[in-house]
């Protein structure tokens, strides 16, 4: 085949998206679902034939029916709400404090210089270990879960906001100053909008982290919540329900992440 003929056939396939052409260009549209179905099928076959002990590795069909059962229970939605509430409040708390601190750190080189080692240390520290401390402070209610969710997601927002503020071009700041813009105006019109994409990347990561914080704190001790559900099912040998609740947490995570991603798209629509 000559080069022009190849080019021609490429252009043709681009212009006429026949079904075969679509499959060839986007094989994942076909392969990914098949892969998923095959994996579930293998798991189902292995457990129903007792190749894997079905008591330990629950068959997917049983998990699916347990999931449907959970969805029919009214108490399930209370647990979902408790975890969502802890996650969102923790997330909000972390976002506000991290942004204020980020502005303080970037405004003053002195603060930056002396705060940075501590920020780095806490970033490397596995924050989940703070769970027992927060429980000692705030008891067995929602407080320690919210605080852990906030502590875990705080640094994701902080470091991204600092990065976002620092990448604002020096010349743009000078221009604002030469136009006699006040500090508030500079922040509102220049710094915040141009830091926004970075901040949003931090917020996306922070949302998942907040959910992790809430659920892990519920693992340690809780009265309500989805993490509590999982540990209770686990202790009662209700394997299928345990799986179903875990999958529900995953879905909640996807929904929360998705809502932040959508919000981000709406906020930075001006960016190409």
């Amino acid at each position, binding site marked *: 085949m000559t080069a022009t003929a190849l080019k021609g056939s490429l252009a043709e396939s681009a212009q006429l998206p026949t079904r075969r052409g679509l499959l060839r260009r*986007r*094989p*994942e549209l076909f*392969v*990914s679902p098949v*892969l*998923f179905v095959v994996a579930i099928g293998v798991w189902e076959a292995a457990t129903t034939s007792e190749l894997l002990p079905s008591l*330990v*590795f629950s068959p997917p069909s049983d998990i699916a029916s347990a999931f449907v059962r959970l969805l029919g229970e009214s108490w399930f939605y209370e647990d979902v709400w408790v975890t969502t509430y802890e996650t969102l409040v923790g997330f909000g708390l972390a976002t506000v404090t991290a942004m204020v601190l980020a502005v303080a750190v970037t405004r003053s080189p002195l603060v930056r*210089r*002396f705060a940075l*080692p501590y920020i780095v*240390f806490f*970033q*490397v*520290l*596995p*924050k*989940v*270990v*703070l*769970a*027992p*401390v927060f*429980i*000692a*402070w705030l008891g067995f209610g929602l407080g320690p879960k919210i605080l852990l969710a906030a502590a875990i997601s705080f640094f994701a927002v902080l470091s991204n906001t600092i990065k976002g503020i620092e990448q604002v071009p020096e010349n743009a700041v000078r221009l604002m100053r030469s136009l006699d813009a006040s500090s508030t105006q500079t922040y509102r019109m220049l710094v915040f909008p141009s830091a926004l994409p970075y901040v949003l990347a931090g917020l996306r990561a922070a949302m*998942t982290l907040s*959910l*992790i914080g809430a*659920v*892990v704190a519920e*693992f*340690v001790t809780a009265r309500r919540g989805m*993490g509590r559900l*999982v*540990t209770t*099912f*686990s202790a009662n040998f209700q*394997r299928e329900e*345990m*799986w179903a609740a*875990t999958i529900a*947490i*995953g879905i909640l*995570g*996807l929904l929360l*992440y998705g809502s932040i991603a959508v919000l981000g798209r709406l906020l930075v629509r001006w960016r190409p």
Partner: protein
Amino acid sequence: MTATAATNDRSRARGVLSAAARGTGTMLCHGLVFAALIGLWAWATRAGGVRSVVVPGPGDVFSALRDVVQARWFAEALLTTTTEAALGLTLAAAVGVGAGLAIGSFVVAGRAVQPFIVALQVMPSVVLAPIFFVWLGSGMAAKVLLAFVISFFVVLVNVVEGVRQVPVNSIMLMRSLDASRWRILTTLTFPSMLPFLFAGLRTSVTLALVGALVGEFVGARAGLGMKLLEFGFALKTPEVWALLVVIGATGLVLYGLVALLDRRFAWWQA
């Protein structure tokens, strides 16, 4: 010429000296700030009359730290948790490099698994802890698996990214020199992927430790995470804070080891 060289040397020497002086000066300032913070903490807990169950003073934490380190269970707990995290991370690195090279090299395979990778990356994978506990029991295996799962996706995504950024021209050059696929993989793709791998490992080393600790929260026979909860429920707050110091130090040491390996094996990256 010799005169200017001499002045250059001298000014350079002065530059080095003043830089060193500035370095020690900064260190001194950091030390002073740290000491002031500790002092403030000690003063606040004493003057404020805070009970050590709520916020222990630095003295309480220090003596608890001494007791904890000398306790008979300490070596075993430290070794257990560190092994779980290190083993999980090593597995994640090995499997992540293998899978990442495959996904990055074969376009169709990469596209096919991409949706799963994105979905699993966004999911909070620590919540699998109770499931792994049911599968593998209260031993170390469940924690190693959790540490592996948590750190795997970070490594994988970075390796795939590293494979995809290999310049097409370099690949074409090797191909025009009649290099085999394997040769290209080992001499071009693998080395140029290394900095990305280590960037991933720097993030996932903390995650692996989180995996080990959360695994121990859910159920364990030994380990720092198990001891932490034990002290927490016994309201031995100074011991809890002492363990926080130990765990933080462990995290820093593991991170330092990864950074060291990074500099050793991906030295051309600044």
